[in-house]
């Protein structure tokens, strides 16, 4: 089909203009992606609309790629509105994908790391020899003119270090000060600035301080700056590792898609794929956007998103999801979700947001962080005053050392990082296991769950009933019974009818037309098929129609009871008033439900099953999966009440359901778990979404949550203890008893590595294996 013959609603006039290539441009250019342009005649219309916008110099459309390149000064909003007025949709092409963003972030981090390392070396190049000199000779005092000259030179060199390696602390501190806020920069700038200023006072005006106090602290100034820069640099490296999970998810995105437009295949960046575009994917390639298969057959590996190890067969009509891997065949699919709407983009977005959210446990640290720096500044002043008033001689030197050490050792960052770093790794770890945690609060509450309510259908079981047994009386065949039953049920939407139809289809049974169809409420159905009167339903229906259920000594009631005891639903089938057999239908239990439930129970969680099914079936299913507590015949609206009852009994309740019927119960539970079907993440009522159907996701989610909370507690404890113990020791609290006063250099090292310790501890979570818990 040629371009000029393609028509759509937007083509009001034929304008057989050929698509033109985007011209290279030198001025500011905006690239718009046009949606709804079905024919080449749209080109002139869109270009005309854009050229009419004030500030537009040129507008050139590439019809094949459905992009238009606009140069000029017009704002993007005006361009989009102009295209929309012309009857199309437009968006600004963000040539930048998550993957590009990540690359840029890594590049920016690397540049910053290198800068900090350079600053570290500069500071240590001066600080280390000075430190060695101080340790070897113990002589850092100013007594002679020569010493004054030498120390003046060193003081100026130290100022050079402060400017070259510590300038960012001082600028940050000053800007924060003007902004009425204080941060880590404030403490470092005040600490090192005080030490340097005092030393310069000693150099310039030695007589202003007592003879015993004429010490200089240039080595401390340089080394502290060097160590803190080193700590920050190492922290950046460690932080990079905390976001590995999100990197892995972003890495799943394909960069290009092979789009078929106007019978031509072209490789386009995935940002340029439009809704309803046909996309070809060959074996070994990633699915670039979400869609529905229109041609071909293949097996797709979805394990990267769902954790489900087995490849999933896909054929015409099946859904494919961006980021998954096409294994065997070549397929063509129609794009149904593109850009930020794909399941993968939503997952990435959700994980990013959850990683940035804080669980309630972090709130105390937040409150403390908000007051921390000024409190430390006040402590430093009080400490200096205490030394000046009560300290031994030289009191001024002790006061300066203690104030500097207090300012340097206090580390608001360790407190601030304690929670977010662990959440970052924990949420990412969960995502790797196919568990999407909505926010930090859900993460924290999941770690405290004491009771888990499981909906039976679709949660413990597959949710799609299947024919399990066809028991026929002598003289009848399975084929005959199934053929008649399926003929009667054809067209019905009832799950049991669907199960029978499916079996008939699998066995390639040809159906006949049913007439005189009559549905008998709570009993079954009757109809005429091929001139035979057919009855299909429960025991009551058979009794009412005088159908004998004991055929030649063969008790079919007993057979039916035995099937019910195995969690199957038996239905009698009679032809012309005589029993022909029993068809039993069951919703099979998921392969790994039993082991998953055992995992939950092993972790001390009370597992309760809820179902709308009859008691016998519920009892049988519960027994099969090892649940002793079950509630049957529950209406969907009563599920929330059961959640409430357990909460009243003091349980922290997790509710697991399919997210549709169970929405109120999911919302009411302390933590609502939605079992995703494949990669459908549009389940808004759940706190945690399990992307695969397996209940092991529940145990994984709880295990990861517990491990993350444990990690947060370790971090918070470490950060609290570090500051609570470090600051008083730095102030000299041990001096009266043990004669110990901390060296500011030690404080600098401790401060620099406290943040690093927090980030490294959070990184330990990466090694956590949820499946082993």
């Amino acid at each position, binding site marked *: 089909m040629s371009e000029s013959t393609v028509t759509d609603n937007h083509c009001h006039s034929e304008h057989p203009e050929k698509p033109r290539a985007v011209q290279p441009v030198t001025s500011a250019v905006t690239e718009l992606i046009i949606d709804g342009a079905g024919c080449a005649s749209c080109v002139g219309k869109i270009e005309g609309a854009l050229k009419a916008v004030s500030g537009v110099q040129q507008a050139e459309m590439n019809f094949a790629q459905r992009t238009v390149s606009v140069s000029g000064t017009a704002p993007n909003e005006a361009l989009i509105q102009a295209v929309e007025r012309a009857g199309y949709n437009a968006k600004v092409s963000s040539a930048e994908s998550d993957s590009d*963003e990540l690359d*840029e*972030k890594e590049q*920016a*981090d690397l*540049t*910053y790391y290198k*800068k900090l390392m350079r600053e570290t070396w500069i500071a240590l190049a001066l600080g280390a020899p000075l430190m060695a000199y101080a340790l070897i000779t113990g002589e850092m005092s100013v007594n002679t003119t020569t010493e004054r000259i030498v120390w003046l030179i060193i003081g100026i060199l130290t100022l050079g270090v402060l400017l070259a390696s510590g300038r*960012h602390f001082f*600028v*940050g*501190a000053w*800007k*924060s*000060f*003007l*902004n*009425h*806020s*204080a*941060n*880590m*920069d404030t403490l470092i700038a005040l600490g090192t600035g005080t030490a340097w200023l005092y030393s310069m006072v000693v150099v310039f005006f030695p007589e202003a301080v007592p003879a015993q106090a004429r010490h200089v602290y240039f080595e401390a100034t340089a080394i502290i700056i060097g160590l803190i820069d080193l700590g*920050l640099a190492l*922290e*950046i490296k460690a*932080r990079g590792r905390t976001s590995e999970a999100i990197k892995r998810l972003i890495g799943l995105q394909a960069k290009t898609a092979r789009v078929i437009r106007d019978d031509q295949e072209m490789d386009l960046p995935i940002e340029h794929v439009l809704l309803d575009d046909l996309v070809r994917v060959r074996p070994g390639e990633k699915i670039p956007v979400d869609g529905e298969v229109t041609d071909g057959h293949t097996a797709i590996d979805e394990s990267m998103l769902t954790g489900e190890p087995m490849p999933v067969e896909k054929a015409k009509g099946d859904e494919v999801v961006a980021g998954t891997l096409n294994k065997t065949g070549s397929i063509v699919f129609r794009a149904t979700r593109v850009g930020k709407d794909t399941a993968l983009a939503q997952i990435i977005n959700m994980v*990013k*947001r959850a990683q*940035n*959210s*804080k669980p309630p446990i972090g709130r105390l640290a*937040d409150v403390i*962080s*908000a*007051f921390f*720096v*000024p409190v430390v*500044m*006040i402590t430093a*002043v*009080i400490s*200096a*005053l205490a030394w*000046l*008033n009560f300290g031994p001689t030289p009191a001024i030197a002790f006061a300066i050392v203690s104030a500097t050490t207090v300012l340097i050792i206090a580390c*608001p*960052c360790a*407190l*601030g*990082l304690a929670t*977010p770093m662990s959440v970052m790794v924990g949420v990412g770890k969960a995502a790797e296991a196919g568990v999407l945690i909505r926010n930090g609060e859900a993460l924290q509450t999941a770690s405290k769950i004491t009771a888990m309510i499981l909906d039976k259908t679709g949660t413990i079981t597959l949710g799609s009933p299947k024919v399990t047994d066809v028991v026929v009386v002598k003289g009848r065949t399975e084929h005959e019974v199934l053929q008649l039953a399926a003929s009667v049920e054809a067209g019905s939407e009832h799950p049991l009818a669907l199960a029978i139809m499916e079996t008939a289809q699998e066995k390639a049974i040809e159906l006949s037309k049913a007439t005189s169809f009559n549905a008998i409420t709570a009993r079954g159905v009757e109809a005429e098929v091929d001139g035979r009167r057919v009855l299909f339903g429960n025991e009551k229906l058979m009794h009412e129609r005088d159908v004998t259920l004991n055929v030649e000594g063969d008790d079919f009631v007993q057979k039916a009871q035995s099937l019910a005891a195995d969690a199957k639903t038996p239905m009698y089938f009679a032809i012309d008033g005589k029993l022909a057999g029993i068809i039993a239908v069951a919703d099979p239990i998921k392969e790994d439900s039993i082991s998953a439930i055992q995992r939950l129970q092993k972790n001390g969680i009370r597992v309760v099953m809820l179902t709308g099914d009859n008691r016998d079936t519920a009892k049988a299913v519960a027994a099969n999966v090892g649940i002793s507590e079950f509630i049957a015949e529950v209406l969907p609206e009563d599920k929330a009440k059961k959640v409430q009852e357990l909460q009243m009994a003091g349980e922290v309740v997790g509710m697991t359901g399919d997210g549709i019927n169970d929405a109120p119960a999911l919302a009411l539970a302390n933590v609502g778990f939605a079992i995703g079907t494949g990669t459908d993440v549009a389940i808004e009522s759940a706190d945690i979404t399990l992307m695969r159907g397996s209940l092991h996701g529940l145990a994984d989610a709880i295990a990861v949550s517990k491990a993350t909370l444990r990690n947060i507690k370790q971090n918070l404890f470490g950060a609290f203890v570090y500051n609570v113990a470090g600051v008083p020791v730095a102030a000299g609290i041990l001096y009266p008893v043990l004669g110990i006063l901390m060296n500011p250099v030690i404080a600098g090292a401790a401060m620099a590595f406290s943040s690093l310790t927090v980030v490294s501890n959070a990184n330990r979570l990466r090694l956590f294996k949820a499946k082993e818990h």
Partner: protein
Amino acid sequence: MLIINIAGVILIALIIWWFWLYKPKAEQVGNDDLVVVVENGVYKPSHILMDGNDAHGITFLRKDASPCAETLLIPELEISETLPLNKPTKIHIPPLNAGEYAFHCQMQMYKGTIKVEGDPS
């Protein structure tokens, strides 16, 4: 010594006043053109005045390479955004009830407030 002690107490009082008690006035009226630059440990402007009747967009431009500056949180609005370096990021603020809404980095070292006047109609 008395003078030093008095100076110390005044210094403590100044710290308390400057960092906790002082209530800065909103520096800039929030509108869709507002750009908040994240640089040198601060948001500039950090105190924003807004009309609660309308939704607004505030563009954050991070120029500070420190990873501390990377995350922007507005807890009360459940906004949590990663700010790329040297790239504007537009944050959409819905119509809000009158009051003060804090925004800060993950460790609360960078801080700012959005003061909203007038409830949404």
